[in-house]
């Protein structure tokens, strides 16, 4: 069973560049066309289940806008870049 994860995308930093969307291996991300950030961008978000907390979205994010969490099952998650 794949790990269950979730992300938080900061409206302060996200510029809606879509790099996370194309990089997401689970294809669970898109721009949230119903919202605008204070800077006027549609922010990225997960639109369906399937996030594994792999953190690839955070790895490619140029604005360090994404915080990644993963449900603890047995193994300690491997931090990004390690």
């Amino acid at each position, binding site marked *: 069973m794949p790990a269950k994860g979730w992300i938080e995308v900061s409206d302060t930093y996200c510029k809606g560049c879509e790099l996370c969307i194309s990089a997401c291996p689970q294809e669970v991300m898109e721009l949230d066309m119903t919202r605008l950030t204070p800077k006027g*961008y549609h922010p990225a978000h997960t639109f369906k289940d399937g996030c594994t907390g792999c953190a690839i979205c955070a790895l490619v994010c140029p604005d360090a806008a994404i915080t990644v969490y993963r449900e603890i099952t047995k193994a300690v998650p491997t931090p990004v870049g390690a």
Partner: protein
Amino acid sequence: MVATNANNLVYERPEGFTDTPTHYCPGCTHGVAHRLIAEVLEEMDLIDRTIGVAPVGCSVFAYNYFDTDFVEAPHGRAPAMATGIKRVLPDRIVFTYQGDGDLASIGMGEIVHAAARGENLTVIFINNANYGMTGGQMAPTTLPGMKTTSSPNGRDVETQGFPIRMAEMLSTLDGVGYCVRRSLHDPKNIRLAKKAIRTAFETQARGLGFSMVELLSTCPTNWGMTPVDSLKFVEQHMVPAFPLGDYKVAAGVAQIKI
């Protein structure tokens, strides 16, 4: 959903960053390079004794984003300023962050001689094949045939010369401890880039000489592409012209385990 707490955390914005959102265009890989540096400084516990040297170019305001001391150099002179700082504060970590116009054109003298002297500095070199800040003019690294605002018909090598491969060029100098080229166009390469940045700072921390990481980067706005297409351009056109690899890894650096 499980409660969000530190135990669940896989990734968060590095402490080496300030709270300031960057001024970079959406999708610009400057932000990725910045983030990797901040992560490495945090992991090595160096934020407290690092002094950065910002260039002139898009990253002129780099000093706003790192929670370290910073100075802002004249165009191309960052390696000279960094030399001045490092020579009087040898126990500090000093790095420059320079673009291709800054480092490979107007600052060619400064970078070559800082490397030749083996200044114990780290240089992060962003190669995105154009002058971003001034609106996308031809840079020393612009690819043959590539259109820019000052090579509107495409760079004609007959009259405008050939791209300069800095990592290869500097690797011939004996003062260089570590000199590599990486790319920021996909997750795998970003991981490799981070490891190289870590190795470069380790090189400096151990006094093993000049270290430089050249990073192939994007400029979606001036290239006239989406951020995603820009990454494809790097993979398809820039990597073949600027091959990724380790151009100089001195014996002492090769022993560093990360």
